[in-house]
């Protein structure tokens, strides 16, 4: 089956098994390796991308679900790395190993688009599915708060 997906603004036609996880299509077929494979079971958030603006875990999303729709990955968030979250991530030196960070940023970007001024509880609830084995949670939260124009420490 061929699947047509708009990936980071570019139309792509993929000749793949419709049940192939979107993550495989992105990484192995399209070479977009910014999105990471962590657990493969929707438990860690490393593979988070946007499907028509909504957060999905690419590891459990069959590629057929993306047919005719738009997918945004970390590479497409701001191709030059100028998204306010990316800049805040650099300024606050958020990542440690970095493996979880593409997923963290993609979830945070969806959150701030829907709620530019989230409460601490809203940040917590939205980010709860993105794990960080290095434990960079406090810097991740601080960077989100910085972009939202809130004090970087929790209130």
């Amino acid at each position, binding site marked *: 089956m061929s699947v047509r997906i708009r990936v980071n603004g570019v139309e792509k036609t993929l000749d793949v098994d419709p049940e192939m996880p979107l993550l495989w299509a992105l990484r192995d077929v399209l070479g977009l390796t910014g999105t990471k494979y962590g657990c*493969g*079971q*929707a*438990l860690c*958030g490393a593979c988070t991308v946007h499907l028509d603006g*909504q*957060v*999905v*875990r690419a*590891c*459990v*999303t*069959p590629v057929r*679900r993306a047919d005719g729709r738009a997918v945004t990955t970390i590479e497409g968030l701001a191709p030059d790395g100028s998204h306010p979250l990316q800049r805040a991530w650099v300024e606050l030196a958020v990542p440690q190993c970095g493996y979880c960070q593409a997923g963290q940023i993609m*979830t*945070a970007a*969806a*959150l701030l688009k*829907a*709620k530019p001024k989230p409460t601490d509880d*809203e940040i917590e*609830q*939205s*980010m*709860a*599915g993105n794990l960080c084995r290095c434990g960079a949670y406090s810097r991740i939260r601080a960077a989100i708060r910085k972009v939202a124009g809130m004090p970087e420490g929790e209130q």
Partner: protein
Amino acid sequence: MHQRLLPFAVAFVFAGCGGPTADAPKGSTALRKVAPGELRTPADFAGIEDTRARSSALFLEASRVLTHPRCVNCHPNGDIPHQGMNMQLHDPPAVRGPDNHGVVGMECTSCHQDRNQELTRVPGAPHWALAPIQMAWVGKSPHEICEQMKDPKRNGGKSLAAIVEHNAHDALVGWGWHPGADREPVPGTQEQFGAIVAAWVESGAACPAKGARP
């Protein structure tokens, strides 16, 4: 709040499905013994002459499905879904959100697809979501669930005919019989369950007494 209620809910659910057979309601013609995974048919209730008693008994039979963790887990009485036969809180931590579909970044459909994902064991069905809080079943008795199900203010404005249709054919309801992976399905089949619910409505949609259990 629901965490405090959970032991009661679990005890209640196990009381409903724990034994080798589901017992007949007291004071009525003895019902056919069935295995925990089997549902009785409307014909099994024909011997109950009193229409009201028959209707109540039919609802109690339906409650063997309705109170199963597979159904109750997404009818929480708080803001967090449950999962598993032990009804543990959903992990990863998901919350109800403003419209029962989760919150931005953690929508139900961020992970759950329109069908089960067998390799990853993530369950899925069309329009995966939590039941609204008015339809909370965790910690509720068959009597309470019955009263809620008949109340248009708490059942999504459904008529009794719409309730029958929903239970008999809705794809998300139907997931209970096809939960995928190694999950225990609810008893019987959706078709049998639909027939029991239809027979309950046809016999007057009576609710079981407060303490009644299947």
